[in-house]
């Protein structure tokens, strides 16, 4: 199990940031992703592996509407 924005999400082997975003349907373009407190650049989403127990934050930079 991993945490995504404080909520439990099922983990599976081989998960990357990219697959987490797909799983959560996070399609908003302006996001900041951190894993266990470390911000990860967009270029590395497909290669950054997510491990069981990781704490992922996907902060959507939108406060408008």
């Amino acid at each position, binding site marked *: 199990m991993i945490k995504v*924005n*404080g*909520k439990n999400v099922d983990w599976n082997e081989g998960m990357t940031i990219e697959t987490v975003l797909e799983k959560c*349907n*996070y*399609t*908003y*373009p*302006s996001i*900041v992703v951190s894993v266990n407190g470390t*911000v990860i650049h967009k270029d590395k989403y497909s290669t950054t592996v997510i491990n069981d127990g990781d704490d992922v*934050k*996907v*902060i*959507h*930079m*939108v*406060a*408008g*509407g």
Partner: protein
Amino acid sequence: MAYNIEEMKNAHKLLTEMKYDVGSVDKGYTNRTLYINLSENKIESKPVTEEVKEKFIGGRGFGLYYLWNAVNENTKWNDPENEVIISSGPIGGITQYPGTGKSLVVSLSPLTGVPIDSNVGGYFGPYLKFSGWDALELQGKAEKDVIIYIDGDNGRISIEEAPLEETDSHLIAEHLTEMYSDSDYGKRNISVVSAGKGAENSHVGLLNFSFWDLKRKALRIKQAGRGGIGTVFRDKKVKAIVVKYSNTKGDSNKPADRNKVVELGIKLHKEIHDLDDKQNRMRKTGTAYLTEIMNDYDLLPTNNFKFGSHPDAHKISSKEFSKWFQLSGSDGCWFGCTLACCKVVPDFEVLTGPYKGQKVVVDGPEYETVAAVGSNCGIFDSQYVLESNFYCDTYGVDTISVGNITGFCMDCYEEGILDKEKTGGLELTFGNKDAALELLHQMARGEGFGKIAGLGVRKLKALFVKEYGADAEFLDDIGMENKGLEYSMYMPKESLAQQGGYALTNKGPQHDEAWLIFMDMVNNQIPTFEDKAEALFYFPIFRTWFGLVGLCKLPWNDVVPADNHTRENAQNVPEHQENYVQMFTAITGRKMENADLINQSAPVYHFQRVFNFRMGYGSRENDSAPTRSIGPATLEEYLSREERYDKQLKEIVGIDPTEMKAEDKFQAMRKFRRDQYNQLCDSVYARRGWTKNAVPTLETLKQWGIDFTEVVDVVKKHL
């Protein structure tokens, strides 16, 4: 049809005029307001005191202040003493920084009975200021239809009977622009405020503010959409207000420190240039980009807010509308706005109604229009959305309210509360675009079922109960209105903070006060009641500030600096807030700190809540939220998200749903959500310094310096 502008002008009858010295702006202010009384044919100049500037700043603040002094606690929206007040604010009208063309319009709303403040882009506010006026107050009622002409070039204001002009905005605004301009190029110096026949025949009328698009040689219009101000305008028998000002310059707002204004502007222009394409693509798609985002996050109002997404949503995505848009490279609604979020569809062939077969310019659609007349009515057709957009604009009716009302009627039709006999033959099922358009035309004509639909969801609920024996509780559950104003187009069901962001407002459920859905539901950044209460203290008050000074919110957060995410309180976009603080000082010469974004706004915000009490509608019961806005209102909605709700019952409520019947699970969730909302109200009121009944305390009035005798007198009655 050919129109004879000369004939229209010759038919004008001058009722009164005032000549005046246009003077000059001084650090963002002219220090006088224009008062027009249509019952008495009076035109007056009133000074603006330093105290009023200090306490109320401008824009919405001025509007509320002047309206308070104009009405009494018994005034109804259609009484002559109700006013329409238009004001921009000290920053409004500069040309160096994106988003500075905004005006705020304030009046007592036909829908709510309390003040509505509605913001609008475009040229009118700045031109009004440069013509010599910090605000325009319109009171009384004319005997016959009039236009008001403010000639800022020659220092003359007139009230003229205008019998021949059409009222629909795409016509009257173009005709008056032609009538009063000196040349084709000079059309750019004219702005017209108008509202069409829909505003006369419904309670959801809006005001259109026009400007001339030189590149396209076409009229463009922006809207002060919410709350029925256009209805008040037409009830006063005003066909249009025209302002003409030909001498706009880069320093027309006469800032204290022009170099600083230029420096801040260049910084934001560069940010937009470098980052907009990677962020929200406002320049290419405008706010329509939100449609697909909201759909992906289950936030797109669908079928009267029952659901948050639909498989056909791609048919009304920004990709679809981009096929219609003509981008000209300079589509902003005031000089210097490089965010340029307005989008234009030129040469749109109208398919229905009185302008069928004509080619028109459609301004939009904005996201709100797409969701309101589109997904909220179960209609996924871009051409229909544009047709509806055009007619709502020219008829002068609010697309948000129209879409909400239509969706509500469709829901009632599908529930069997309405039928063809009651709707006069309109088969108002979700997805029926022909029926939706015919309803709009009827609303505008004031005929048939459309006539009563145009009264708004609150009055429709009462009517359906009285005339058709509908279940009042059920209609309260599904009727998406609060305080009488229809909800704007974000599904708040799964965000407790946004539920408060809508229903704990002063004006009614317009997201202009707070838009917390992502912070709350997606980012989970405000998990506790205290966190939500803090957000519902901070954001409504901070966002008030834009409407005090004449600024658009979109350049605040629809584009953000590349390093914004590294800043503390990134959701506030701190660098842009720093820009605003420096900008205010650079314009007015008044020192401002970041805390003043709250200190300047809080007095106006609390004053507005007291004003609501004065009009009889300020208390907690007026902040109640329809069940559909806070959770599933029907078993169907529960089952559409059964997995999510079952999980919430188990993990949050502490009830194991495994053996429970569906109806019992639904009722348990419903009760839980209602309890949560009530708890939120308690937390928010406490944070705002209000009682449990939403009354600002005497300490709060004193804290924000609004403990004026009249304000205290109102509050004391409710403590």
